[in-house]
């Protein structure tokens, strides 16, 4: 029997899956000739799913009544928090497809599988965000991960790209193993997998079996791997450096958000009763990520590696908000996430502008003198870097403001102090990029600007960093609504 009520909730995912299969068939039939058409189809699919996401009366012609929150029993949850994060993921995926518009073509490697893989990875992420059962969580995560492994190795003739894919696969499989082991422990000790009954079991019956705590710790380790929190971050710099740049941009944006949202839900809903236990883990991972991301980034010479460490530090800040928990923490996390995702996609767009004699270059030194050879890109990058450093008046400051405000409000002043001090350290490497662009002499002309996709992502991101300063309120209020609706 078709569960129509549940179908109503998963309609965006269904649409995305259909678009994905259509794209797959088109790709199989058309080959490389249809790469661009498939790309456009994917962007259209993201837009369609995004529109449906916020349509309050999905499939009203079939069924009346309010949209239910849970679907397929308790496997799938559709609250305002999930919708907010899904909208960000869809936007990030669409922008990532735009970033890749002519990247592979320039290497003679254009293949229509690329947008198809992004489509399926995004579908996996949407399932992750909405998962309210350990099983649906695992299924979503694996659909995402398998697509990402292939994407990392997408330039299959390139040794570094293949290496990145392999590394990511081996370590990712390990973390999946940890996750499954944790799930099995929790199931073994409680007999439950769905979040709601786990929550009430852990809250009401004081079910503090050590096995549950161990299972929770295993799942935390696996999820820390997915969000690249220290000490499970080791794959990040290598995979970021080796993967093709548009793929790296995608990695830094969408999967990170999905894993973080899932992490938040897992800790605040089923594991709420164990908050005394997981709080220590999260605080440790957060501090370690902030500090390691800051200090290890200082010595990097490659843009993509640098941005990898930057993303590790940023995960540290985001985990501060997770450790705060509750409505203020979730709201701060959503604000930070929205700003960060645009900021980082913009930074990768700049890396995509770096081509010399037809070859992509990605050393920091390759940016030298960019303010003379390409003032517009240099200006945009300056805005993005100051914003990542959290220097006001740019939007990145507001992200940090709300995260650390919520931490101080929750009485976690030391965590906030470590956070702001580590942001001073990270400022050093962002400043270095600006120094290279503005203070150093040009090393030789870069190739002309790439296509409209990169340009529009760069323009959109840098403009948003300025505009959000003047009108932060819509974002703050949207995050507030999403946090209020968070079921946890």
């Amino acid at each position, binding site marked *: 029997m078709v569960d129509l009520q549940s179908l109503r909730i998963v309609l965006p995912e269904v649409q995305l899956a259909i678009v994905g299969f259509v794209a797959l068939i088109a790709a199989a039939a058309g080959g490389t000739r249809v790469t661009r058409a498939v790309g456009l189809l994917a962007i259209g699919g993201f837009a369609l799913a995004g529109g449906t996401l916020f349509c309050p009366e999905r499939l009203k012609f079939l069924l009346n009544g309010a949209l239910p929150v849970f679907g397929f029993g308790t496997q799938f949850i559709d609250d305002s928090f999930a919708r907010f994060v899904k909208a960000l993921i869809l936007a990030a995926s669409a922008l990532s497809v735009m970033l890749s518009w002519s990247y592979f073509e320039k290497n003679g490697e254009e293949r229509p599988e690329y947008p198809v893989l992004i489509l399926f990875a995004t579908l996996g992420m949407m399932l992750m965000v909405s998962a309210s059962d350990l099983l649906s969580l695992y299924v979503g995560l694996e659909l995402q991960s398998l697509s990402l492994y292939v994407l990392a190795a997408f330039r299959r003739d390139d040794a570094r790209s293949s290496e990145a894919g392999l590394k990511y696969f081996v370590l990712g499989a390990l973390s999946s193993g940890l996750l499954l082991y944790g799930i099995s422990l929790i199931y073994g000790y409680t007999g439950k997998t769905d979040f709601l009954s786990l929550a009430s079991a852990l809250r009401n019956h004081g079910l503090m079996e050590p096995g549950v705590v161990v299972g929770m710790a295993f799942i935390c380790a696996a999820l820390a791997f997915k969000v690249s929190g220290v000490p499970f971050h080791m794959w990040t710099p290598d995979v970021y450096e080796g993967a093709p740049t548009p793929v790296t941009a995608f990695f830094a944006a969408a999967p990170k958000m999905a894993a973080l949202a899932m992490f938040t839900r897992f800790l605040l809903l089923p594991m709420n009763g164990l908050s005394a236990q997981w709080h220590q883990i999260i605080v440790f991972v957060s501090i370690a990520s902030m500090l390691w991301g800051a200090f290890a980034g200082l010595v990097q010479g490659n843009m993509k590696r640098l941005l990898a460490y930057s993303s590790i530090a940023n995960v540290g800040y985001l985990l501060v908000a997770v450790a705060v928990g509750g409505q203020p923490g979730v709201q701060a996390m959503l604000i930070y996430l929205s700003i960060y995702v645009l900021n980082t996609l913009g930074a990768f767009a700049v890396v995509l502008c770096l081509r010399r004699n037809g070859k992509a270059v990605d050393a920091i030194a390759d940016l030298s003198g960019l303010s003379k050879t390409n003032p517009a890109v240099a200006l945009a990058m300056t805005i993005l870097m100051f914003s990542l450093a959290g220097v*006001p008046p740019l939007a990145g400051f507001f992200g940090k403001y709300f995260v650390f405000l919520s931490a101080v409000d929750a009485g976690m002043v030391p965590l*906030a102090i470590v956070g702001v*001090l580590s942001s*001073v350290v990270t*400022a050093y490497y962002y400043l270095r990029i600006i*120094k290279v662009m503005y*203070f150093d002499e040009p090393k030789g002309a870069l190739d002309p600007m790439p296509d409209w996709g990169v340009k529009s992502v760069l323009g959109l991101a840098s403009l948003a960093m300025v505009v959000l300063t003047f009108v*932060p*309120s819509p974002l703050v209020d949207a995050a507030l609504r999403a946090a209020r609706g968070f079921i946890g």
Partner: protein
Amino acid sequence: MTDFPILSALTFLPLLGALIILLFVRDGEGNKTSEKVAQQIALWTSLATLALSVQMLRQFDPSNTGFQLMERFVWIPSFNIAYIKGIDGISVWFVMISTILTPICILSAIGGVKKRVKEFMIAMLVLETMMVGMFTALDFVLFYLFFEGVLIPMYLIIGVWGGEKRTYAAYKFFLYTFLGSVLMLVAIFAMAIHMGTTDMTAMMGGKFPPQMAAWLWLAFFASFAVKTPMWPFHTWLPYAHVEAPTAGSVILAGVLLKMGGYGFIRIGIQMLPEASKHFAPLVIALSLIAIVYTSLVALAQTDMKKLIAYSSVAHMGYVTLGIFSFTEQGFDGAMFVMLSHTFVAAALFLCVGVVYDRLHTREISRYGGMASNMPRYALVFMIFMLASVGLPGTSGFVGEFLSMQGAFLANSWYALVAATGMVLGAAYMLWLYRRLFYGPLVKDDVRAMPDLNAREIAMFAPLLIIVLWMGIHPDTFRHVYAPTLEKALSAFQSHVQGG
């Protein structure tokens, strides 16, 4: 006219000018016409801002000690963060010094800055927006936004147009001040949570429990002590000053250092009175060390800009000394030293810039005997040098006298140490003057230097008038801020004694 948001207009007019230059002036290194256009737009924008600020001064009512010309708009209502602007007797002069110095700097840059003219003009105008915005902000988030935002244009000004070690200087400047400020940010969080709002006017007058206030005070101190700068947090300043281009040094000494002093009054005295009283011995000790120690260091300098930079640290010592003596004269003197130092230090850096543009060296020993071939320059330099020393009749005298008097009233030993600093100040400045202007004119390149040209005279003339006016009739300037400061002091005293 009363509804016109004059403070916002003042804040964003320079930004508008910067945007116009950014969008409508064509790029091109060495493109003379587009460089000229950029210079003219920047100059006229800053002059229009100055005119607007004069209008603001006319609308300002000195007898009213509260905040005036208030503007309040919704910004982030869910966190009780609003866009609030307003001025009182304290901040009104800081706005004025920002708007007076910017056109002078742009005028100096028209001759002094040869590369990337367009970008330089944009940076100067953005800087002006940040400065004016900071002094008129009455919401903590807004305040912090502008306070920190200053770093962005200043980092670029030092790094792009600076001297040999500009990269090091720019990093040091940025990271030092950023480090101090992030601690202030944590304090702002704590205050915002305690009060439920970030409205600065709601926080005046000791509303925080003593232990919390002590921590808050230390966090703000970290930021303002670096910015002012106080010994031993001053080490970024000599580098930043020496490597920055002339216009950058002028703004740095003239306005940015005052942000620290302004912060001490606005937040230290008005918001955390008990903690200020508690920590006053620390501040006074550091101020006295700064006055004597940096004067001695200045004596040993061979680089003109470094010498003036160290003298700035010493002068800011008088400011903190005056504020933390908690006397009427001390407050008055601190305020006057800040205003006077703005114009005198700005003028001295411009003076260095004049010869630096000609010979491209700041080594004192490379010059000598300039009194005979550059008489006008020698006269201008002498007046500002004497103002820096504190000669009666110049602005420097009034401020240092009042500040010393305040220190004397608090404790006569303070005044004794501070007076030693004044003697040393006279020594290093007079010695500098002797080495630059007297003695035989032996070096050919020095002999060949032309005297001040019309643009340079236009640049110095307003400063000269202001410095002498401040010395001869200080009340023109004092009557604007004196009532507000008096009220701040009496509020402070009643809190300290009552609490």
